[in-house]
């Protein structure tokens, strides 16, 4: 028990440290980029830019600004958005984040619901035509990127068959198309991963023992092998969610969903410093929380991970 508590505490400490590093890296990465937030296509008078920089405190030494930023961050204040006049970063994120998050989570659930059963089934039927067919389809799914699948799904399911709306978030089913696009892509990865790790487990001695004892093959598969076989999939959930968030930027573009993707891309091109930093912080927290949960679940599934 002590063991588990110590493991969880040390993983938690690591996550907090990693978060600090990420915030620091993005702060300086964004600030050292050439250009500035107040440059426009129209020529802005020099003294105006200076005044603006002064107002926002951009004229002070970078390290001082960094300290002030961290101080504000602790209180949960992400600052004003420079590109969206009159909005704070908190407001922009509160508006867009739920959309991106819902897309990512629904995509992940769809991916698990398709990927895990397909992987287990292919492993059970290993080296048969069924297995090869499923894995070839999975490989195709990996190679056809989301931005090819998304317009095709939109064309066929929404325009031709009329099952879904093509765009807009409010009261519409377009978000499901987006989640499906993301989910299909990651289900291909998860299917391959599940198949591989199930095959590893199925070749071990305790499985042979179970078969020798006369346990029903289905029971061996789900009762004996599944717990070990699913561990790498659980470990993959952290990176998968990070990828899903990046992927949701593409899906949001295709289906016109008002997530954080468009805001973030605009923020990056217009040097909206606080929105860049705020978005990265929110996503980093999400990824770290996810990784932390994954580690805890993994330690519970497979007690050997703790000692590693």
């Amino acid at each position, binding site marked *: 028990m002590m063991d588990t508590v110590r493991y969880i505490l040390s993983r938690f400490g*690591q*996550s907090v*440290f*990693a*978060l600090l*590093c*990420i915030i620091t*890296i*993005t702060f300086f*990465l*964004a600030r050292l*980029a*050439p*250009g500035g937030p107040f440059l426009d296509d129209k020529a802005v008078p020099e003294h105006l830019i200076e005044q603006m920089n002064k107002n926002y405190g951009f004229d002070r030494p970078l390290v001082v600004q960094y300290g002030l930023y961290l101080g504000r961050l602790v209180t949960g204040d992400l600052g004003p958005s420079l590109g969206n006049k009159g909005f704070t970063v908190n407001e922009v994120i509160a508006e867009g984040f739920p959309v991106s998050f819902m897309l990512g989570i629904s995509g992940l659930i769809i991916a698990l619901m398709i990927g895990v059963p397909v992987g287990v089934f292919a492993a059970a039927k*290993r*080296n048969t035509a069924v297995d090869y067919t499923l894995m070839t389809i999975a*490989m*195709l799914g*990996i*190679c*056809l*990127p*989301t*931005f*090819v699948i*998304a*317009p*095709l799904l939109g*064309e066929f399911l929404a*325009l031709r068959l009329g099952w879904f709306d093509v765009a807009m978030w409010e009261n519409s089913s377009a978000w499901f198309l987006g989640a499906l696009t993301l989910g299909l892509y990651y289900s291909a990865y998860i299917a391959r991963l599940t198949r591989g790790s199930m*095959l590893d487990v199925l*070749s071990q001695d305790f499985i042979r023992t179970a078969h020798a004892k006369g346990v029903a093959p289905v029971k061996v598969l789900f009762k004996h092998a599944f717990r070990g076989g699913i561990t790498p999939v659980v470990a993959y959930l952290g*990176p998968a969610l*990070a*990828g899903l*968030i*990046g*992927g949701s*930027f*593409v899906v949001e*573009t*295709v289906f016109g969903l008002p997530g954080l993707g468009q805001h*973030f*891309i605009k923020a*990056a*091109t217009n*040097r909206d410093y606080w929105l*860049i930093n705020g*978005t*990265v912080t929110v*996503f*980093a927290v999400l*990824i*770290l929380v996810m*990784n932390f949960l994954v580690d805890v679940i993994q330690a519970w599934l497979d007690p050997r991970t703790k000692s590693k």
Partner: protein
Amino acid sequence: MISTSHRQGDTIEKGSSLGRDAWLRLKKNHVAMASLWFFIAVVVMCFFLPFVPGIPNPNITHPDLQSMKPFSSATSIEGEEVFYFLGSDHLGRDIFSRILHGGRVSLAVGFLATAVSLTIGVVYGAVSGFIGGRLDAAMMRIVDILYALPFMIIVIILTTYFGNNLWLLFVCIGAVEWLTMSRIVRGQVISLKNQEFVEAARSLGLSQRRIIFRHLIPNTVGPVIVYTTLTVPAVMRLEAILSFLGLGVQPPDASWGSLIKEGADRMASDPGLLIYPAIIFGLTLFCLNFLGDGLRDALDPKSSKD
């Protein structure tokens, strides 16, 4: 003395046959071999065919020859005879030659970023694994932290630095992509460094640098080749995503990603604009992934299915 030379002979023979064995195993894997030849064909076509006379210039527009059907030939208003193998787009540009030109950018960018990530990852992993102890722990902790970075977001921020220079951007992407490679190499080096040949090298008084670069790294080649084959498609996908989001290649230049983006915008009126580049892009990635899988099976028969 006799036993030493005998053992040496053994290892030399084993060393040479390992590679040949792998090649023989790969040759038996028809899917992997077909993938290899297809990939070579795509590379040769993209890099050399645009110089062959008769292939239209991808950037010359023919306002009077818009949206031509595949396999059609026509005479433009300037009196120029043009043959459209895959038809033409909304500006009368030849789709086939645009795909070839786009492929050059996509492939070159994939190779470039992979080469950078390969160099950093192999050196980082080998040093970390070989020296071990505290340095290893610290270096691997750095890798852990970088893993938690929202990768796509960092890449988008990086595009603000190199907005106009795709090549520099991808050197930087390579500099972010090396994490998995370094872990793989480190694992290999740790399992190799306690073997006799490293001890022999050390007792002969070789420097650490020489041991790492001449004795350890060459022995990690198998997994490194496999992972390299899988990194190229990953980077090509990334380039395509960036171009799709409007952050990568800028028109009139093209990559497979930007062609697919253009095609998706005009899918309803002209599906070929989306379908042809998507097919060639998907097939190339498909082949690279299958080749990577085949190489893994060939280089490490133990890991292959049952």
